C-alpha cells in the first residue's frame, strides 16, 4: 500500500516530463520515441564505461555501452553513472582502479572494447566486475555486423542482468503493437514488431480497418491478431519471417482475443457465433474447437497459465467485468477478482504467480498486479486515467501497457514490476496501442548460435555469484 501513496507523485513526474521533454524526431518514420520518466535511488549502482574502439577504421555508429546502460536503467533495478560522472575510461582489466569506483559508490563495473574483425564484422569484448570483491563475474565476446550491434548490446545486458540478479534478462526480446494514424475515414492501422526498446520497427500488416490484440506464439515466430479488414472481425496467424498468414476464424459475430497456449499447439479465442462471446480453444493442427465457457454474458480475453492447464478470462456474468479462472479440460469456474469495479484485460507472468489487469474505479483505469503468492494482494503500477493491455516481459521483471492521453493519443509504457521506473514509447504523428511483449529470442541458459552473430564463450570468467536484487 506504500505504492499507492507513490502513485500521485509518479503521475506528477510523468506530467512534468510530458510537458517539457520534446520528443526527438526519430530517424525512421515509424519509430517510437523513448523517454525514461523516473527512477529510484535505491537501485543497484552499476557503471557501464564507454567501450573502446581499437582499430584504425571508423567506429560503428551503434554505441553498445550506451544501449547496455539504458537497458539496466529501464528495468528498474539498476542506476548508472553517465557522461562526465564516469571519471575514468578503462577498457581492459588492468586499467581498472577499483578505489575510484568504490569512492563513487558503484557495486559493479562493465568494461569493453570493439575492433574491426574483417569481412565487415565488429568484434565486441566485454567484462563485468564486482567492485567490492574486485572479481570478474563475466567475460565474453561477439562477432557481428554493424547492424547487429543493437541486438548484441541487448544480449550482453541480459547476461549482466542474470549474473547480478540470478534471473534471465529479457532485453533481447521484441514487442508487437498497433499504430494508428489519421482520423475518421483517413484512419490507418499498422501492426508493428520492434525491439523491446522500440528500435527496429517492422510493419507486419497495414489496414484501413481496425487491427488489434496481437499475441505471440511461444517460439516468437508467429503473431495471432484480430483484423476487421473484411468488414467484420477475423483472427489470423501470421509468420513473421515469411509473411505467410492463415485465417483461423471468421465466423459470424466476434472473432477476437487470440491467445497461444504455452506449447503453441492451441489457440484460445473469444467467438460470438453462438449468440454472445464465449471462450473457445482451437487445436491448431486439426482446427477442432472446444467451447470452454457457456454463459450468456461477455466472456473474452483468455490468457493461459504457464502450465497450460487453466485459462484466466474476463466475464461480466456478475454485472461488471471481472476476472475468472477455469481449467481447460473442464471443471468449475472460480472468480479471481473482487477489488475494483471493472477488472479485465489480464496478463499472466512467467511463473503464474502474478496476474496483471486493467482495473477501473470510477473513471480511472490503471494497471494493477495481483500477487497470487500474497493472498491475491493487488498493487497498482500505473497512474491512469486510461491504461490498458498489460503484458509481462518473459522474465516477469517489466510490464508493457498502453495509455491514452487527454487528446485521445495512445502511447506505450514499459514499467518495472515494482513500479519504480516507467518509460514512454510514443509515435510522433499517431497513436500506439494493443502492445504485447514477445518471448525470449534465445532460450535462457547456454547461448544458442544465431546466423550472423557468433558468440565466444566466457572462458576466463570466474563463476558468477548471483545476488538477489535489492
Amino acid at each position: 500500500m506504500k505504492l499507492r501513496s507513490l502513485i500521485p507523485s509518479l503521475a506528477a513526474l510523468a506530467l512534468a516530463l510530458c510537458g517539457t521533454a520534446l520528443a526527438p524526431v526519430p530517424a525512421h518514420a515509424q519509430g517510437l520515441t523513448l523517454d525514461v520518466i523516473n527512477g529510484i535511488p535505491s537501485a543497484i549502482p552499476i557503471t557501464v564505461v564507454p567501450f573502446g574502439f581499437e582499430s584504425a577504421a571508423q567506429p560503428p555508429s551503434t554505441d553498445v555501452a550506451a544501449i547496455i546502460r539504458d537497458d539496466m536503467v529501464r528495468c528498474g533495478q539498476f542506476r548508472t553513472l553517465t557522461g562526465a560522472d564516469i571519471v575514468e575510461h578503462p577498457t581492459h582489466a588492468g586499467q581498472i582502479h577499483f578505489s575510484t569506483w568504490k569512492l563513487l559508490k558503484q557495486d559493479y563495473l562493465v568494461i569493453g572494447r570493439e575492433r574491426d574483425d574483417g569481412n565487415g564484422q565488429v568484434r565486441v569484448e566485454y567484462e563485468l566486475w564486482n567492485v567490492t570483491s574486485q572479481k570478474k563475474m563475466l567475460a565474453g565476446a561477439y562477432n557481428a555486423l554493424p547492424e547487429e550491434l543493437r541486438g548484441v548490446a541487448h544480449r550482453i545486458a541480459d547476461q549482466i542482468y542474470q549474473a547480478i540478479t540470478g534471473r534471465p534478462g529479457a532485453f533481447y526480446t521484441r514487442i508487437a503493437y498497433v499504430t494508428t494514424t489519421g482520423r475518421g475515414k483517413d484512419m490507418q492501422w499498422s501492426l508493428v514488431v520492434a525491439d523491446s526498446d522500440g528500435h527496429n520497427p517492422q510493419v507486419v500488416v497495414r489496414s484501413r480497418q481496425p487491427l488489434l490484440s496481437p499475441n505471440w506464439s511461444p517460439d516468437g515466430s508467429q503473431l495471432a491478431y484480430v483484423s476487421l479488414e473484411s468488414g467484420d472481425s477475423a483472427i489470423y496467424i501470421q509468420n513473421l519471417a515469411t509473411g505467410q498468414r492463415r485465417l483461423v476464424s471468421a465466423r459470424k459475430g466476434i472473432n477476437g482475443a487470440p491467445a497461444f497456449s504455452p506449447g503453441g499447439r492451441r489457440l484460445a479465442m473469444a467467438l460470438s457465433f453462438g449468440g454472445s462471446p464465449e471462450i473457445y480453444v482451437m487445436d491448431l493442427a486439426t482446427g477442432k474447437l472446444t467451447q470452454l465457457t457457456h454463459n450468456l454474458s461477455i466472456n473474452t480475453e483468455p490468457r493461459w497459465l504457464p502450465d497450460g492447464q487453466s485459462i484466466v478470462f474476463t466475464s461480466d456474468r456478475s454485472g461488471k467485468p471481472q476476472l475468472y479462472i477455469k481449467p481447460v479440460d473442464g471443471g468449475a469456474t472460480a472468480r479471481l477478482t473482487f477489488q475494483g469495479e471493472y477488472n479485465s484485460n489480464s496478463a499472466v507472468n512467467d511463473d503464474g504467480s502474478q496476474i496483471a489487469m486493467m482495473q477501473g474505479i470510477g473513471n480511472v483505469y490503471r494497471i494493477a498486479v495481483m500477487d497470487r503468492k500474497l493472498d491475491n494482494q493487488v498493487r497498482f503500477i500505473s497512474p491512469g486515467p486510461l491504461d490498458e493491455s498489460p503484458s509481462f516481459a518473459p522474465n516477469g521483471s517489466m510490464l508493457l501497457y498502453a495509455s491514452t492521453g487527454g487528446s485521445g493519443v495512445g502511447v506505450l509504457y514499459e514499467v518495472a514490476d515494482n513500479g519504480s521506473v516507467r518509460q514512454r514509447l510514443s509515435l510522433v504523428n499517431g497513436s500506439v496501442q494493443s502492445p504485447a511483449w514477445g518471448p525470449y529470442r534465445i532460450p535462457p541458459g547456454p547461448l544458442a548460435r544465431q546466423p550472423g552473430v557468433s558468440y565466444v564463450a566466457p572462458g576466463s570468467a570466474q563463476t558468477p555469484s548471483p545476488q538477489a536484487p535489492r
Partner: protein
Amino acid sequence: MNTVARISLAALLCVGLAACASKQEVKPTPPPPPPPPPAPTQTAPVSNGKFTPADLNTNACLIKRSIYFDFDKSNIKPEFDDIVACQAKYLVDNPGARVTLQGNTDPRGSREYNLGLGERRAKSVEQAMEALGAGADQFTVVSYGKERPICHEMTHACWAKERRVDIVYTKTE
C-alpha cells in the same frame, strides 16, 4: 402513442403542481398555461401509409440513424423508442431493405470487452426492431468496440457520442 401519453402525463403534473402551489396563496392565481402543443415531428409517412426510399432522406425520424447508450449499458433508452420504431417500420414497409448495425463504445475499458459490448448494443437494437416486425434477415451486426473513435477528447460529452449504434442502410428497397 407513447409521445402523446407522456405529454399528457406532463400536463397532469403541471396542473397538480399548480394546484398545490395555489393552496399556499391567498389570492386566486391565473389558471396554468395550457401545455405547449406537441412538436411537429413528422414520423408518419404521408402517402399510402408506407415509407419509401425517398423518405430516408426527408422524414424527420428516418434521417436519425444513431441510438445512444449509457456507459456499459445496452438497453435502449425511452428517448430513442421513436427512432427504433420508425426505422423498424421502414424495414417492414420495405422487406428488401437491409441495414448494418454498427456497435460502438467509449474508450473506457478494454478493447476486446468493448467489442463484446458494441455487439451487445447492436443486437439490442436488432431485437427491438424485430419485435416491431422487421425480419432477422434484414440485419447485419458488426461491432467496432472502441476501435473507431469519432471524438478525441477525454470528456463525458465526447464519450457520450461514442456510445452508439449506427444504422447504415446497405440496401434501401
